[in-house]
């Protein structure tokens, strides 16, 4: 592989937020529930600009799990975007997905994961995958930019094809650690 190909692949990989937006369109996602995270900012902007998508900003992430339950009852597909700390807020509400066999794809940007600066992010970041799996969620990780789109594609398919909660965890190595100007 020559250097030019390397560079173009790197650029393409850095465009993963746009790739995720295209994926949501491909899968016919109509309801996008979210509590914002910096790692999702570009994807959120794309969704807000799309009149065919309803972006539902939440006060807490568990609202998003309940929203996805209602959307599926009404025949619409949804997705929940959040930061890893928000996963902790969803745990009991995930009972809905197991009880009713409801597709609930989640796209989680990690904190407390790789080079974290803020000690308060580490406990939940360290527990994110474990607690999701404890609640029956199928979890896959993407730790390189080029893995993000294929992994999210796989977990969205798993959610809607096999009727369960699924999550892609996008590693902090992909997003970059927030350092509060203290590099």
């Amino acid at each position, binding site marked *: 592989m020559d250097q030019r190909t390397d560079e173009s692949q790197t650029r393409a990989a850095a465009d993963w937020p746009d790739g995720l937006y295209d994926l949501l369109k491909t899968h016919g996602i109509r309801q996008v529930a979210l509590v914002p995270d910096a790692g999702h900012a570009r994807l959120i902007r794309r969704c807000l600009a799309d009149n065919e998508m309803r972006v539902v900003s*939440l006060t807490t992430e568990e609202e998003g799990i*309940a929203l*996805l*339950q*209602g959307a599926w*009852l*009404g025949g619409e597909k949804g997705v929940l975007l959040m930061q890893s700390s928000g996963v902790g807020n969803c745990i*009991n509400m995930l009972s*809905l997905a197991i*009880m009713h066999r409801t597709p609930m794809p989640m796209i989680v940007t990690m904190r407390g994961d790789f080079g974290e600066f803020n000690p308060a992010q580490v406990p939940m970041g360290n527990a994110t995958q474990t607690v999701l799996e404890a609640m029956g969620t199928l979890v896959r990780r993407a730790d390189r930019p080029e893995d993000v789109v294929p992994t999210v594609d796989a977990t969205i398919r798993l959610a809607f094809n096999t009727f369960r909660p699924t999550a892609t965890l996008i590693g902090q190595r992909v997003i970059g650690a927030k350092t509060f100007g203290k590099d």
Partner: protein
Amino acid sequence: MLAASGKLDRRELCRALLDDRGDMLVIAGLGAPAWDITAVGDRAENFPLWGGMGGAAMIGLGLALAQPARKVLVITGDGEMLMGVGSLATIAVQRPANLSIVVQDNEHYGETGMQETHTKHGVDLVGMAKSAGFPRTMLVTRPEEVPALRAAIHEGGGPLFAVAKVDASSLPLVLPPREGSYLQARMREAVLGPAAHHQL
């Protein structure tokens, strides 16, 4: 419709609200509201919850956004609504005209030993919904006010948020089915037809 306490009988209230309901979809919060809608009549357009406390109103929002041409009614308790009180802000911002939320407020946690909720101590859910931006709110305490509530639910022009103060006594259990995938599949089929099970 009044109980001996002088407050509304929750089940009679439920029966009145669901009378001649057409194709309205109904989500019921866990506990007594789920037993109440089942006592009125179990059917595919009912989604009684066995858990997910705090999520009933948001399930209603997701359903109302997905099916804007159908009326969606969430019937839940004061404890359940208080656990998800932030969703009042989320729903007010989304402003679905076809969604109504009715809290049957007995001022207690009825399933766990009748401990008092915050509404017993003056917390005003109607005021909170109004402040969040709900365009229509109602407080119902008398039988003669119930027809107006039923009419408002059926009119649309929401989202509507209402509190009905109900008698706190527990009524005989009328349990809905407990098989969650059945509850979900039957409502999806009622909404989407047989395609509900084949559309992927």
